[in-house]
Each structure stands twice: as C-alpha cells, then as structure tokens.
C-alpha cells in the first residue's frame, strides 16, 4: 500500500489544486455546466477548536460532487456553513454568482438549496406525510386567517401541494407509511423520508449528509438508485458527503477530500484514489 502511495505521488500532486484536465473531460462527457456553488477559503472555529481552514471548491450544474474524509474531518460543518446554520469566520460562499456576507438558512432555502441530515433530523412528532409536506412550506402562501378558516384558498393550496408530495412518496416507495409517525419507522426508511422532505422543496442543489450511513447493502443500493434518479430525472445538482469511499467512487463526478478541516484532495474519483495524502489520511488510519 505504501508502495502505491510512493509510485502515484508525482502525477497526483497537481490534482490537489483546482480541477485538472481529466476531471474537466469527465464533466464535459456528462454535459455538466456552469459553476452553481462556489466556496472560497472558508474557515470556521468553535472557540479555539478549528473545524475548517481555508476550504475552497466549486460545484457545477447537474454534477454529483462528493465531499469525503474520515470522521471529524469537518464535512458536516462544511454543509452547515453552506446552509447558513453556522457562520464561518472567514471566506465567502456564492450561489449562482450571488455572494452572501451573512447566509441565513431561509435565504439559502429560497435559492433552491435543500439538504438531508447525517443524524436523522426528522420531525419525530409528525407523520411521514406531514414531514414531507413541511418541505413544501416555501411553496405555501396562504396567511394565518385563510388557514384558520381553511375553506377555500387554504384547502385548495393544501390539496395541490398534497398532490406533489404524493408524487414524491410514490417515487420513494413509502406509500404504506404515509400516516405513520416517522419515529416508528425502520431507520432505512427514515432516511428516505429525510430525502423526500428535501425533494419536496424542488431543489436545484441538494446536499446529502451521509445518506447511506448505517445502512445494509440493499438499502445502500436503493439509496444510490434514488440519488442517481434524482440527478438524472430532475437534473438536480448533488453535493454528497460520505466517509465510505466505495459508495462515492461509483456515484460521484468529482470528489473533495477533507482531513482535520483541511482540503487534501480534489478531482475525479480516479485521481483522488491515487492521491498519496488521501491514502495516508484514509488507509493510513485504516491500518
């Protein structure tokens, strides 16, 4: 293993900065377009603890972009910055060319960025239906009074959105669970509901935080299928966090590798696979 590392050290070196030719080639092949999301030297720290240092990368229209790294590499923190849940101390994030000094989650959501969570963050007290319906809240415009009376506008709006949500439920094959409280569902299916809630927002960019964590093989396959379908059918750009390399390699177009809050690799799966630092960070720890 260390041999491999040595041999691939030289060619892989340039892969660290920017996106090299090989990568661009692949992108072209899958008809991937403009940069939709650009992260510039983000740094984030809690008190003294540095979670992220000078992270930069970009995400292009319609691609599947993976962020990998061992546990505690700062992957989730990265997503939280993009969502505006955390405010980075340094750096900027721009969506479709618009740069925000202060991201707030609402704005990000309105810009069409949706997200799923690593540790399930579903609304436990609510049914599957309500969880996914909640994802539609940006699309629902009736005011408090109209809803209180319900009859008329609110009713119509509710029904219309319900139709969309039922579509998502069918897509995720969880019809049987419609009315069950999410708390009572098997873990794998909860993950689907989480995805469903995100899809209900009809996002252009979809951030997935370890969608396959803790799943068995079949569940993983189902989930990958869903992700690819979403990417193809709706042309949704996907940013995917995983610590399990294998999954990432066959799913994603380009990969960013984080370790201890630093970016140590960026490029196509192939390039990254041979990046010595990545190997050290990963397999090194694996030994």
């Amino acid at each position, binding site marked *: 293993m260390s041999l491999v590392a040595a041999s691939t050290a030289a060619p892989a070196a340039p892969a660290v900065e920017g996106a090299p030719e090989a990568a661009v080639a692949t992108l072209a092949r899958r008809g991937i377009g403009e940069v939709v999301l650009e992260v510039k030297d983000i740094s984030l720290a809690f008190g003294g603890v540095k979670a992220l240092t000078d992270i930069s990368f970009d995400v292009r229209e319609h691609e599947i972009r993976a962020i990998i790294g061992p546990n505690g590499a700062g992957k989730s923190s990265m997503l939280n910055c993009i*969502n505006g*849940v955390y405010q980075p101390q340094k750096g900027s994030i721009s969506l479709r060319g618009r740069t925000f000094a202060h991201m707030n*989650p*609402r704005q*990000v*959501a*309105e810009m069409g960025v*949706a*997200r799923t*969570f690593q540790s399930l*963050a*579903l*609304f*436990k*007290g*609510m049914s599957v239906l*309500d969880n996914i*319906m*909640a*994802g*539609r*809240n*940006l699309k*629902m415009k*009736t005011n*408090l009074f109209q*809803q*209180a*009376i*319900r009859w008329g506008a*609110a*009713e119509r*709006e*509710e*029904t219309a*959105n*319900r*139709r969309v949500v*039922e579509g998502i439920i069918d897509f995720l094959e969880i019809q049987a669970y419609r009315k069950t409280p999410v708390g009572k569902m098997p873990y794998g299916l909860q993950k689907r509901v989480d995805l469903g*809630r*995100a899809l209900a*927002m009809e996002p252009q960019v979809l951030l997935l935080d370890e969608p396959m964590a803790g799943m068995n093989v079949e569940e993983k396959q189902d989930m990958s299928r869903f992700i690819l379908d979403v990417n193809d059918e709706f042309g949704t750009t996907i940013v995917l966090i995983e610590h399990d390399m294998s999954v990432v390699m066959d799913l994603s177009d380009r990969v960013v590798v984080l370790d201890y809050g630093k970016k140590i690799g960026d490029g196509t799966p192939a390039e990254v696979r041979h990046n010595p630092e990545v190997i050290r960070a990963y397999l090194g720890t694996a030994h």
Partner: protein
Amino acid sequence: MLYRENGQFKTSYRADQQIFPIVQDRIAIALLLVVAAVVIPWTAPEYLFRAILIPFLILSLAALGLNILVGYCGQISLGTGAFMAVGAYAAYNFTVRIQGMPLIVALLLGGVCATAIGVLFGIPSLRIKGLYLAVATLAAQFFTDWAFLRIKWFTNDSLSGSVNVGGLQVFGWPIDTPVQKYLFCLAFVVVFALLAKNLVRGHLGREWMAIRDMDVAAEVIGIRPVYAKLTAFAVSSFIVGVAGGLWGFVHLGSWEPAAFSIDRSFQLLFMVIIGGLGSIMGSFFGAAFIVVLPIILDNLPYWFDVPIDTALASHLTFMIFGALIVFFLIVEPHGIARLWSTGKEKLRLWPFPH
C-alpha cells in the same frame, strides 16, 4: 357500536384531509355536539352548569390556547394566567369606557390585547430556550399581577381594585341564567376549537411542530423561527385572552387579579400535560380531569356519608391530586389523548390482537 373503517375509501385528498376521516368518528362528534347543545341545557341541574360545565368550557378554551404554544410549538409557558388577565381586564375597559360596546366585540378585542402582550413576552423565546424561557413567561405573570393591582386606570379607579360587570347581553338576548351562559361559552369553544384545529393541520401548524421537533432542520427547509414562534405566541395568547374574558365576565362577574394568579397558570399547564401535549382534544380531556377531580375528591366523603374533617379532606385532595399527576406522567407521559387514541386503535382491530 361497530368501529370499522374498511369499505371507507378516500377518493380525493380533500376527503383524506378531513378532521375526522372515519365516518363513525364524525357521527360520534355530531352526537356529542347535539347532546352538548340540546340535551344538557334541558336536563342538567344548575349546580352542574355553574360549578362544573361553565368552568370546564372556559378552562378548556384556555388550555387549548396554551396547548398551541406548549404542545404544538414546544415553547413552555408558566404565565398563562397573565394573558388571561390581560384579556379580561382589557375587555372590561372596552366595555366601561366605550358606550354600547357589544359583549362579543369586547371579548375579542380583549383577546387582541392579550395577543400584543403575548407577542411582546414571546420575543425572548427567539433567544432563550427550554426551561430558561419559563422565566420570561413568569415575568409576564408577576408583572401583570402587579400592574392590575397597582395601576388604577385598568380597574376604572375602583376603590378596592376589584372590578365587576353586569347586564351581559348579545344581540338583545340576556346572558344571565346558567343555561344562557353555558350556551354562550359553548359557542365560543366550538368555534375556536374548529379554527385552532384548522391552523394546526395547515402548514402553519406544521411549521410550529417542525420548530418544536427539530428547530435547526426546520430552518434549513426554510421555516423562519421568528415567524413560527411569534405566530404561536400570538394565536395562543389570543385564545387564552378570550378565555380570560369569559372567565371574568361570564363565570365570575366580579374579579381581582388573584383570579388569574400563578396557580391558574399551573392549573392550565397541568391540563395540557395530562390531557396530551399537541392535541386539541387533549385540551378538553385535561380540563375535564383537572376541573372535576378535586370536586369529586371533595364530595366523596359526603356521598358515602362518612363526613371527615374538612382540613384532612382537603389535605388528602392535595395528596391524591399530586399523586395522580405523577402516576399519569409515569403511565402515559403523552396524556389522556394518547390513551384515547390507543384505545381507538384497539377498537379498530378488535377482536384481532394486532
């Protein structure tokens, strides 16, 4: 009765979104309303109206309001009494200061004032979470207690600081006899319960529950905590305020701030918890339980004709009450409403075990 839903197929989302999707439930609720509105007024004795039914109705309305805040939006409040007081005193001032102010309008305006105060004291909830928030609501409680005792203007300069209202009427009908009062309250409760139910099953309700269950995730899908929390405070304190108005005008007729003391706040919180957090129906169960239980306990010795010393009796009441609450929390932390639904589930599957 046979409790089955098979054969009841929903052909439209609309049908599926009804409050009571199951036919039997709809029938049951209709019957209940008929009994409440027609049978009881003819049959029930006066004591039942004055000592049980009217307080029950008004308090369940207040509990319902509180439940929206605590049960649906997850913001704990120990200051409900304060918002009731605001509602009551505001309504009082509207009636005495504006000639010919109609009763219903006065009560609703009282609710509006309560809303304002509620939102004001709700603002800290944007920054303060959980038990810490309780102190904000307690601040509201003690402040209003003080304000209505001290600021003469609120009590229309009454010498003793206690106020009274009389000659209630709606569209010329007097609200005077127990039955009239009962029906008046009943109307309010039914309407408000319906509106509240609509809210909590609409997308505003989902936003509240989302904030309650997982506020960060809620933000990420575009829900604004500010909006969700403040609307919850607003709606909640509006309903509570109206309930306060009814309590003062219809039930007491003459009151002082003590009528809305912190004990009232706790009483209402008990109702919500025991009845079931996040359940409209639970609010009614809770209110019934809390209103009726002490009365039963007080009366028990007389029914069985074993008169025991009054002091002992009321001490026992305290003890049993406390014990029951604890017992409840242990057996079913989600309150009577949950027991009710599990019961119904069983009934649906009966006689099959699963």
